[in-house]
């Protein structure tokens, strides 16, 4: 028994056969994906290393709690779960496209590739909304002994520790007038009742009295690296999704033009399928590192 098994194993390497039973392009796609896994891994591990070197790191549920159309409602994890499910479902439709390719079913490949492209585009749309929301968001923040209004960029972010009331009371005295006006507009006492209060006409002392400091939940500025890592890693992943969508569109056109039907096989769909699943795989880890823990 042992000898026959050994003979059968070595037979793969005696020539005339593919030792890995894989077409060249597919094998190379696997090795590319392995190297890409190291690239993403390096980014995420670098993020983890910096995060472990800080005494304070922002709570993801404070940062990612918005949902399109829900205004200022506090909905942690809601939007990112939508994004996660979009990618999982688009991965499933890609599996179905690859299977249709196995069966040389041109219409099936077209149908499922189409839905995969829709899923990828939907994910990119979600990410665009999320980035836009984070960059243009207006948050009162205590930085360098005065109050400021910032969004999340690679230079500053408003996700630090909650500032103490005494620090805020001292900082508001050093805050420039135009910031005071904007703070009063963001959350002033009696803001709802008198929506058209002309805060610009008030004096500085009146403005300070009008600002609802507790309601603004003022934080200190968070670790500078947070913005850079978030935009860098989700951006790199988003670029993979984008290129995946482009490649899928090219495959859709080639399928429609009968390129693969004439070739007699749909191996290209398998290779793009591998790439697409990898994008989903990376998102699983990005989701873990940025949103869950």
């Amino acid at each position: 028994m042992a000898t026959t098994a050994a003979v059968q194993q070595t037979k793969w390497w005696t020539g005339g056969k593919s030792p890995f039973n894989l077409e060249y392009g597919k094998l190379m796609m696997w090795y590319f994906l392995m190297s890409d896994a190291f690239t993403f891994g390096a980014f995420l591990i670098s993020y983890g290393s910096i995060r472990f070197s800080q005494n304070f790191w922002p709570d993801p549920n404070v940062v990612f709690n918005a949902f399109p159309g829900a205004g200022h409602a506090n909905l942690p994890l809601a939007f990112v779960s939508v994004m996660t499910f979009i990618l999982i479902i688009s991965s499933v439709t890609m599996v179905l496209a690859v299977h249709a390719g196995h069966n040389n079913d041109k219409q099936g490949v077209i149908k499922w590739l189409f839905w995969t492209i829709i899923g990828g585009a939907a994910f990119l749309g979600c990410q665009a909304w999320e980035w836009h929301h984070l960059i243009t968001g207006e948050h009162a923040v205590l930085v360098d002994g005065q109050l400021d209004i910032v969004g999340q960029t690679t230079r500053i972010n408003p996700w630090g520790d909650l500032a103490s009331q005494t620090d805020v009371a001292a900082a508001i005295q050093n805050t420039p007038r135009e910031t005071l006006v904007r703070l009063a507009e963001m959350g002033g006492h009696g803001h709802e009742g008198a929506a058209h209060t002309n805060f610009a006409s008030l004096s500085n002392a009146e403005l300070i009295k009008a600002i609802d400091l507790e309601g603004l939940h003022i934080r200190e500025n968070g670790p500078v690296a947070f913005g850079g890592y978030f935009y860098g890693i989700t951006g790199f992943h988003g670029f993979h999704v984008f290129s995946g969508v482009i490649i899928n569109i090219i495959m859709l056109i080639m399928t429609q033009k009968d390129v693969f039907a004439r070739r007699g096989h749909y191996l290209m769909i398998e290779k793009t399928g591998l790439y697409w699943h990898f994008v989903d795989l990376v998102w699983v880890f990005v989701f873990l590192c940025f949103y869950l823990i």
Partner: protein
Amino acid sequence: MQHPAFEEVTFHHHTDDATFKKKVKNTTILLSILTIVELAIGLIIYNMHKGDAPNELLVLMFKGMVCILTLAKAYYIVSVFMHLGDEIRNMIMTIVVPLLLFVWFIAAFIWDGNSYKNLRNKYDAHYKESTMPTKH
């Protein structure tokens, strides 16, 4: 079945439609359940952080559970959706064995970051005082 374009490549693992559909359906359900459990744990962590004095060890345990669930998801995506589980063992090993570097990679760099934090807190009192989060 021999492949028309690549004579040296044979496909032993071509599944029939019914088995395939069942496998894909089961994997999809499994991935969805794992994701929902992850989200539930995420909400538990969120509510613990909202509380007055979160039990740090319990939070850490929940975070560890999410990490394990993520690895399970990764396994199913790679093994079923990417069909790596159906490939020849030697080929699987050429992918999986290099990835074992991650074990050292993750441990070493997290350890390094943590050690940097501890050294800084030990020798730079001002840094420690100005960056340590206050309890609310």
